[in-house]
């Protein structure tokens, strides 16, 4: 070791000879991107406030209900964002709208109230920006069926979606002996997914909160900067990935 490269020629380095100057130079360089990528956008976006949506006359985005807010923390804690994005890309850029993941692209306004904002980086599963309105949108009768679907899916994804690679989350549920009449909350599980006779599977509060969060995920109100795109006319609108979805 210790060839010529260790004691190099002395030319060209005079600018970086004074320690404080090097320090300040690097710090200046590092702060350039901070001003541009963080501080300036914070000035522009950090003061943003809710807007009144034309469609509903209500403030958007509204605060999530308390249970859904707890659910958001379960979503964070379980790392659902390692596989799911929450961003619908614009029309003509990828096929997010084609998959029915939203009626329009998502914009900064949609994330105003989220803490943390979990956009995601890799989509192993489908985008979830609008999972709350994608299944049986606006149909209040569909609500219980949707809750049941999500709970079953979380307990064991393959019980509703063959070959799913989404992890099962049995620890968000409790398997317990049936005590007298079966609980109304018990999951309707069939075949290999059903518990042993005399047992039932009921959601723990974490699972209930998580599903409340999923159902609160809706970013499809028309906004001036992101008007709703008319649905595709070729009739292949894919409402959800779930073929076995009762709410479809």
């Amino acid at each position, binding site marked *: 070791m210790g060839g010529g490269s260790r004691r190099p020629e002395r030319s060209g380095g005079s600018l970086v000879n004074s*320690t404080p100057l090097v320090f300040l130079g690097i710090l200046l360089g*590092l702060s350039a991107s901070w001003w541009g*990528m*963080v501080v300036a956008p914070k000035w522009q976006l950090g003061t943003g406030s809710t807007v009144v949506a034309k469609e509903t006359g209500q403030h958007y985005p509204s605060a999530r209900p308390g249970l859904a807010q707890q659910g958001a923390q379960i979503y964070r804690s379980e790392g659902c964002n390692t596989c799911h994005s929450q961003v619908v*890309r614009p029309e003509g*850029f990828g096929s997010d709208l084609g998959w029915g993941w939203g009626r329009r692209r998502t914009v900064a306004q949609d994330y105003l*109230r989220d803490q943390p*904002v*979990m956009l995601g980086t890799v989509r192993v599963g489908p985008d979830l920006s609008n999972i709350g309105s994608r299944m049986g949108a606006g149909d209040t009768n569909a609500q219980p069926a949707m809750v049941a679907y999500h709970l079953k899916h979380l307990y064991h994804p393959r019980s509703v979606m063959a070959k799913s690679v989404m992890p099962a989350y049995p620890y968000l549920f409790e398997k317990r002996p049936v005590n007298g009449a079966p609980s109304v909350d018990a999951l309707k599980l069939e075949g290999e997914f059903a518990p042993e006779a005399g047992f039932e599977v009921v959601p723990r509060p974490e699972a209930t909160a998580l599903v409340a969060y999923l159902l609160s995920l809706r970013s499809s109100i028309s906004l001036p900067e992101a008007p709703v795109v008319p649905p595709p006319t070729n009739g292949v609108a894919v409402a959800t990935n779930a*073929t076995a979805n009762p709410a479809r």
Partner: protein
Amino acid sequence: MASSDWTIKPAPSTSEVDASLRWVVFTLTAKSALWLVVGSFLTLLASVKLHAPAMMSTASWLTYGRLLPAGWSALVYGFLGQAGVAVGLWLLARTCVQKLQTPLLVVLGGCLWNLGVLAGVIGILAGHSTGREWLEMPAGAMAVLVLGAGVIGTAGWVTYSARTESSPYPSAWFVLLALLAFVWFGTVALMMLGGEGARGVVQVLVQRWFAEGLLKLWLGALGLAVILHELPTLVNRPLASRQLALVGFWALVFFAPWGATGHGDPVPRWLVSAGIAGKTLATVGVLAIGLNLLKTLEGAWGTLFGTLRGRLIGVAALSYVGGGMLQFLGSLRSVSSVVGLTWFHAGLEWLLVGGGVMLAVIAVLPETFERATGRALAPGLISAHAWLTMVGVILVAIPLLLAGVVQGSALAKVAGTYMESLQGSMHFVRLSSLGFTLFFIGQFALLAGVLNVGREMLMDFVGIAKGWAAVPGDRKGVGARS
């Protein structure tokens, strides 16, 4: 400043410089080797869980969404944050021809750092992830890391200011940059994300700016410090151009973290443009580095790839420059509409971090270790470690990149069900499990080597203590004083 007046100081000998790093290098390497085993195990488990999603699903800490960030944190902060810094400090001391200053403080900073990583990894597994990529460790753990990095970084900068070489070799700048960058990005991210400090997508901007900064200016800078130093040495030539290295350095410092935004992001249009411009200018920096290495290497590829160490450095340099190019390509509108938000992202991270940085670090780690501690790691273990890591990393990065392209192309045409569109890419994702397996097995070789040396040192110590105990009582005082 008087401290820049290097000419009046007598230069220490190379062996004095090396010896000043003895405990720093030993402790950092030993702890990093442990984290490497932990991190590669967690990432392997995560990868296996994609084959068998219901396996071991009753334990919350074994869920994919926790294993992956915990494993990545162990690899990045536990391994690279220590082994990379150990190697970096050694290069810094060597190129500045100065003993490492306040080495005990560095050992202390290293202990703080480990405390932070431990709390962070356990925190993620226990469900306290922050949900922000690269920043998943709970804020408290991250704060301890920043503190540790501050202590270590100060020692590095003090060493530089006490240098006896007037204009050190470019590797020194990259090490200095890395030491400062971690503290800067860490402090700012913690401050801006604490409490309700940042609203909405501003959080994402802070997080991505942090991740990009750490990737390019902390890890990337450490990798480049090694590559720029090793590659010319291995082919026994001087670096082609110091000026070109300067251009690359400053282009990266100023522009690399701008790459936080891209097409399709839910942010104002000007921010997307700024992000693209930043990526382009940072690519100029990568090109300058690549060109420099290419000119240095002209006609000497055979020499470089003739040795195992050369292969590691060669593959690391190719990964760094190739990864930089791919990242630029992936940010172009037409390409990112396909590969954006796919496995491509994960593949790129593995190419840049695993290939560009990790391979470079493990190439010099054995020499750093031997020079500083005076004890060699067993050569058989070193080459087993090098081969398994190199092949493992390649078999992770390439399949994941391909998975991203296949997945993106399938998603681009809306046909069939989502699961059907996923099938093609999952083959490649599963292939990467093979890479993760080799990578995991390989890490035992390094750990075994370091443990062996630790045992030797302990035996020596016991031998000395025994010898001391055997000396008659009335002479002990004499021996201790002399």
